[in-house]
């Protein structure tokens, strides 16, 4: 495990880089054309005709074999075309190929009851999976052989219209990718292999995104979008609003997406507290709960505390204000308590909230019976939970909620972005970086920290108000410690302090379990493992804040440089 033997290994690999990559690419393509399963599985043919079926027509490769084919071709391209930081790109593609092959092999093996399913059985052979795995591993090794150089940096500047076009196209591609990801494996119980298809798709996406990021495209794009902040948010929101018109535009995904949005808005609020001001909050979901309870009590539901209904906007504002007041109260110990000690204060508050809500404190929560029957929102007579038609296009039920929530998320993103790049935001970041130095610069740290809590809690309260109407029931069970943890995980997974990070994190944390539904029993276990792995390989989060990204890249670069020097020495 010493550095000596690592470098020796690397140097041994170095001359093999390109040949391995070439072999990996070719084998990948071959794998795509081979059959993968030796017999039809119990639940019907493995999707996309991979059961004992060879490549049969020019464009006859679909599904995961199509992904394998694409990866194989990309590996060949990356091996021979002039690509910046080739090693990284090849390695990422190799990982993608490995993951796709592994997921399919593992699933077939399990479902088929043995390795015979992916090798040879009763005279039938199907080595596609094995070849794919070999190709993937070869390619990863090739990546190391070529050498892991720093991520490519794109220095060239482009004019604003071109930048807009690039952003438009890129975000359009993101929309397409999201829709594709949501709909892989189909909706409902139609496809018994949906879970595996999704994981396989995820492997493909990991490979391609890794390659794009290795080339430097992702970094360039995110710098570009930070530069054109307003335009980016508008385009992103517009893209999100187009989602109902894609394949993912059905009631189920609208519901899931709306829930993601609610949690994303809350996570953005939490991102102010954790990401900007650097205050760990382990009881944050309580503010969302407070917002939801306030909204429910003013909704005219049968068991509400107040016997009258306020218009939603009014109730939502009250919800935000009440949550904000509680936020300031919870934040006030920050005047004296620091760091992880503060985290436990927030955890304590969260527990106090759940317990009190469960016991119907003050008659506001209806205890364990919850407040059911919170009416759906409606606007001009259109109920938000019914489907609507625009012209000839019939949109699925729940689409109005989705639109409302997209706007809510866009608004919270704007709030977050504006605050981040302001006097207040700088003060928060300064506190996060070095509290004493911040005070020495004249920042009233106590006031600023309470302000962070207050604003964060208000955003959560607002999201909670929407939550109450969207779900129709407000029960303390929706606001337990695990939810706080999930929110925190969303922030950190997405990338602390980064604007799109919280949204991506929330999306991942809510989509992943949804797509893993088919694994039933194993679902949460896989989820736990996924958290560990993501943190392991991407500790700064998926879309780190520009500043933090630099921090990390630099460290990686140092490693890479060291490795390079060592390799040369050897």
């Amino acid at each position: 495990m010493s550095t000596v033997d690592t470098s020796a290994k690397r140097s041994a690999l170095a001359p093999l880089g390109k040949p391995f990559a070439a072999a990996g690419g070719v084998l990948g393509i071959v794998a795509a054309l081979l059959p993968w399963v030796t017999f039809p599985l119990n639940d019907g043919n493995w999707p996309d005709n991979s059961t004992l079926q060879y490549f049969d027509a020019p464009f006859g490769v679909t599904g995961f074999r199509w992904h394998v084919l694409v990866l194989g071709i990309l590996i060949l391209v990356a091996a021979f075309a002039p690509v910046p930081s080739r090693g990284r790109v090849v390695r990422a593609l190799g990982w993608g190929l490995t993951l796709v092959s592994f997921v399919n092999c593992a699933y077939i093996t399990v479902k088929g009851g043995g390795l015979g399913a992916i090798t040879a059985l009763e005279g039938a052979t199907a080595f596609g999976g094995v070849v794919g795995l070999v190709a993937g591993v070869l390619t990863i090794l090739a990546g190391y052989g070529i050498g892991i150089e720093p991520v490519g940096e794109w220095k060239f500047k482009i004019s604003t219209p071109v930048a807009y076009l690039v952003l438009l196209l890129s975000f359009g591609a993101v929309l397409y990718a999201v829709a594709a990801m949501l709909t892989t494996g189909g909706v409902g119980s139609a496809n018994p292999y949906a879970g595996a298809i999704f994981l396989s798709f995820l492997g493909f996406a990991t490979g391609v995104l890794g390659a794009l990021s290795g080339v430097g495209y992702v970094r360039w794009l995110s710098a570009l979008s930070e530069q054109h902040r307003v335009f980016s948010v508008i385009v992103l929101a517009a893209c999100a609003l187009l989602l109902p018109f894609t394949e993912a535009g059905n009631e189920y995904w609208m519901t899931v997406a709306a829930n993601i949005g609610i949690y994303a808005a809350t996570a953005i609020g939490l991102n102010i507290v954790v990401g900007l001001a650097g205050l760990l909050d382990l009881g944050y979901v309580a503010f969302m709960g407070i917002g939801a309870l306030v909204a429910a009590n003013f909704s005219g539901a049968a068991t509400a505390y107040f016997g009258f209904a306020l218009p939603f906007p009014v109730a939502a504002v009250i919800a935000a204000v009440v949550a904000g007041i509680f936020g300031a109260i919870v934040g006030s110990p920050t005047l004296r308590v620091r760091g992880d000690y503060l985290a436990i204060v927030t955890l304590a508050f969260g527990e106090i909230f759940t317990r009190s809500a469960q016991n119907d404190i003050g008659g506001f929560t209806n205890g364990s019976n919850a407040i059911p029957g919170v009416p759906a929102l409606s606007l001009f007579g259109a109920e938000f939970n019914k489907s609507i038609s625009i012209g000839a296009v019939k949109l699925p039920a729940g689409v109005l909620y989705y639109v409302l929530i997209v706007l809510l998320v866009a608004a919270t993103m704007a709030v977050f972005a504006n605050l981040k790049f302001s006097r207040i935001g700088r003060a928060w970041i300064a506190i996060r970086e070095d509290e004493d130095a911040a005070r020495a610069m004249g920042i009233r740290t106590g006031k600023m920290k309470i302000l962070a809590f207050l604003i964060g809690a208000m955003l959560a309260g607002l999201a909670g108000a929407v939550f109450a109407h969207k779900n129709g029931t407000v029960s303390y069970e929706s606001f337990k410690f695990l939810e706080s943890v999930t929110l925190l995980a969303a922030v950190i997974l997405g990338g602390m302090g980064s604007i799109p990070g919280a949204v991506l994190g929330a999306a991942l944390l809510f989509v992943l379990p949804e797509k893993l539904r088919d694994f039933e029993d194993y679902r949460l276990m896989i989820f736990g493992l996924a958290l560990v792995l993501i943190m392991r390989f991407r500790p700064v989060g998926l879309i780190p804040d520009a500043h933090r990204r630099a921090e990390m890249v630099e460290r990686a670069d140092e490693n890479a440089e060291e490795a390079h020097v060592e390799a040369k020495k050897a």
Partner: protein
Amino acid sequence: MRKHSVKSAAIVGASLLVLAACGSNKTEGGGTNGGSCDTSKGTLTVGVVAPLSGNLSALGVGIKQSAELAVDEANKKCTVPGFKLTVSAQDDEANPAKGAQAATKLSTDPNVVGVVGTLNSSVAQTVQPILRDKKIPMVSPANTNPSLTRGNDFLTAPKRQFDNYFRVCTTDDLQGPYAANYLVEKAGKKKIAIITDGKTYGEGLAAELSKQVTKKGGTIVGSEKVGEKDTDFSGVIAKIKALGPEAVYYGGEYPVAGPLSKQMKDNGLDVPLMGGDGIFDPKFIELGGKEGDLATSVGAPTESLATAKAFVDAYKAKFGKEDYAAYGAFSYDATNAIIGGLAKTLEGGAAWDESKRDGMLTNVGAFSGSGATGEIKFDQYGDSTNKVLTVYQVTSAKWKDVQTGTFTG
């Protein structure tokens, strides 16, 4: 550093492979599973919404597997000619919002004919309207909150809440008072202490019980709460012990009730503990339920019902030692109600489409049959008409029925 990452990834991968291998079903060769029924018209799905992961999963998995058993049997018997039935089980994590997503997922599938679930009343509250909008019948094996069917004023002004919602289990306002009558009148326990776990089921049950106890001349000497995840109850026990109760009523489920009963005895409070159907489970005794403890459950004793025995045997044959838990039999009956309603709807060889759902609601509502928990039939609110309740007592480490009847006030 980097080498480590490759290595650890390899280890993770290898261990996943091992895990995967452990879960294999060992069926080589394949094709769809046989059966001589005609399944030419396609596949229809019975949805299940229950907690399949987390700490309530024992109950949820019991619900899911019992539904699968019912569906399997129907497939074998060709109950719905022309169709193959499957179960699509969705995890709700006992979380209302997750339940809503699970229900929405099922509701967008045109082939879903009905949903069995949920376990938690709070989850039912979010699931009911979603399924109602699609006219999908929902039959709960476990929701005991009376307001789900009869609204908030269930005693004074009952009003049907959701025309797609039915349940095969009993409600708190029958079970609680029935238990109270037994405790006060039959067992002669006048001073009763109440402990609940703070959740909907236990709270509701305990509330209805305490009303009846007072009405019958008993007194509630104390009312305490244990945390859902608590394990050491000595504090609560010491507190109620000082109040000198003659019996303790526990509102909640056996995972807490069993240890609680044991700790009561250990701490010198040797009075019977009574609970609802949530503790009527052999596990209660395994976990420390002591001699003389009591439980109410719906229907006549299982030994006296051939259908109940048949269910237990079939379940054991199909799933081995895995437990069907407290609500398995109810889930089996709920599934059969849906299948029965479906068979009626598609009588005469009709094809399935979503327009048949109106008929489904009527036919499930009108279903009547004999199930593992007794008679299955629904009243005008969607509640089970099976109001027979049985009191069981732990005798020689087994549940033994001591009284069967209906609650009459």
